[in-house]
């Protein structure tokens, strides 16, 4: 649990388009790393490459290394399916499985891993829902469809689904961008609690959010349309937001562009 990630000279492509150029970055365990940057800078692409979701898009490919506690998830011997089972992901829009009940949504990952024991599944469902601060709200309607919850509850359901399998890393792709401020606050509080157990990487467009939830911030930028995105700088969140080393970062966080 809670492994570290070392990205080494990672280049990402969509077909012939070079989307991300040479990212090298270390994500320490039990820590929240935020990716910020203007639209199109490749921060979501980098995030999706960390659990090999990037290559799901036809024509997309990755070059370079992503080491999970020293093991390259892109080495030829590694099955992408098993990578995704140990690296959880939460998406921009809540995406519970609409035909499944709340409980079945939470334990979907375990079911995929072959767990059939009802008692064990019930225990895990409760633990994950408590972990996602959703248990109190849904404990009386675990058999109801997950689609019946509010947007914020659905997103916490998705977080519960991701942590139910006790992943090594939790990736979050703008998890609050479709939510209202109160739900956003609930998710941010949750991130603060989850980092005790998990390594978390979060992409956000909201710089205040990055400042609030993360320990380390990576700023991505692109030279222009059609140019690949690059990692400009990565540092402690406090330093990035108070005294960044590059002019571009300062311009971005002070709202001068992006």
């Amino acid at each position, binding site marked *: 649990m809670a492994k570290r990630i070392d990205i080494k000279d990672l280049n990402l492509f969509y077909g012939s388009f070079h989307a991300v150029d040479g990212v090298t970055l270390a994500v320490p365990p039990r820590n929240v790393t935020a990716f910020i940057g203007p639209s199109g800078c490749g921060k979501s692409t980098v995030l999706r490459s960390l659990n090999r979701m990037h290559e799901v898009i036809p024509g997309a490919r990755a070059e370079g290394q992503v080491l999970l506690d020293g093991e390259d998830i892109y080495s030829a011997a590694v099955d992408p*399916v098993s990578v995704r089972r*140990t690296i959880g992901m939460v998406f921009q829009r809540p*995406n519970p499985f609409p035909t499944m009940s709340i409980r079945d949504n939470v334990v979907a990952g375990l079911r*995929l891993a072959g767990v059939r024991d009802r008692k064990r599944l019930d225990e895990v469902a409760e633990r994950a829902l408590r972990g996602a601060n959703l248990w109190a709200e849904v404990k009386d309607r675990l058999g109801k469809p997950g*689609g019946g919850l509010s947007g914020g509850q659905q997103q916490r359901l*998705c977080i519960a689904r*991701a942590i139910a399998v006790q992943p090594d890393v939790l990736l979050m792709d703008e998890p609050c961008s479709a939510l209202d401020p109160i739900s956003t606050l609930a998710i941010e509080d949750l991130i603060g609690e989850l980092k005790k157990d998990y390594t978390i990487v979060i992409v956000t467009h909201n710089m205040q959010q990055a400042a609030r939830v993360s320990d380390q911030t990576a700023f991505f930028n692109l030279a222009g349309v059609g140019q690949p995105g690059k990692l400009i700088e990565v540092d402690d969140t406090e330093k990035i937001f108070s005294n960044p080393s590059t002019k571009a970062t300062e311009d971005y966080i002070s709202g001068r562009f992006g």
Partner: protein
Amino acid sequence: MSDRSSLRRPATTATSGGPRGGGVTDDEQFAEAPIPSPPSQSAAKHGRLGDRVFAGFATGAGVFMVVLIAAIGIFLLIQAIPPLADNKASFLFSRTWNADPADLNFGVLDLLLVTVFSSVFALVIAMPVSLGIALFLTQYAPRRAARPLAYLVDLLAAVPSIIYGLWGLEVLAPALSGFSVWLNENLGWIPIFADGNVSAQIGQTIFVAGIVLAVMLLPIITAVSREVFDRTPTPHLEGAIALGATKWEVIRTTVLPFGRPGYISASMLGLGRALGETIALLIILSTTTQFFGWSLFDGGDTIASKIARASAEFNDPKAAGAYVAAGLVLFALTFVVNAAARAIVAGHKEYE
């Protein structure tokens, strides 16, 4: 004209800010121009007239369709009532069919059973195969191959049913002869493979007819299912993939649940088609004087093939009316199947 003037314009408006500023002055100039009358008034009048004409046309077409269906229904009923009144047998429960106007003694039950039995058999074969084709085309086949393959499947729907009938009789029946006999000899203790009332070896049986029907259903069920499977929302797919689902698990957890109502209604649509299919069955099925006995190796007639077979002899209105009555039963049956399909789709709305 105004475009050209706006080309000259920016020289003077450049300081007031970019293309948007240019656009405003352009509009002003257009309004001040004397020749074109203010467009809003005439356009509105024109639009209102066009609106009325089109609304009238659309409403008329809609009403016409309802009237047409009602007229057909009433006409059929009027035709069917006199022979039904003179019928000596129970129309719904008798299994004999004698439409001699001097001695009307006809019941639809045997025809109905053959119709439903052959259609359901065809559906049992066509449903899994169509599901496989649709999943292959949407999930497994490379994009470049999927499109031509889909066209090929759609092409099956364009083959006239008489061609299917000829193919069934001349090609499929002899080809399946050995298999039919083998099924009959080895699995004959299962009622549907028991001895039928026509020769399993010659193959003018419900077994062969059902397989031909199944081939005819494939493009219908596949086309609709493919559309539905293709529309599985990407977030659901990605949710499953990110949990570490394999290809098959992604299909099982997202594509199939999402597409199920569409697949079922596609199958019902196919069933409706099978129930009404006429000429292929007319060619393949051997007539028999014996009743249908729940075997795939029975011959006989479906409602539609019976009507078609007798169509040359519709010289007496009462005899023709007996067949019209049978046709009404078929109409009611397909109506029920379609209603069921709609109900199934409506019942699954919450998942979309």
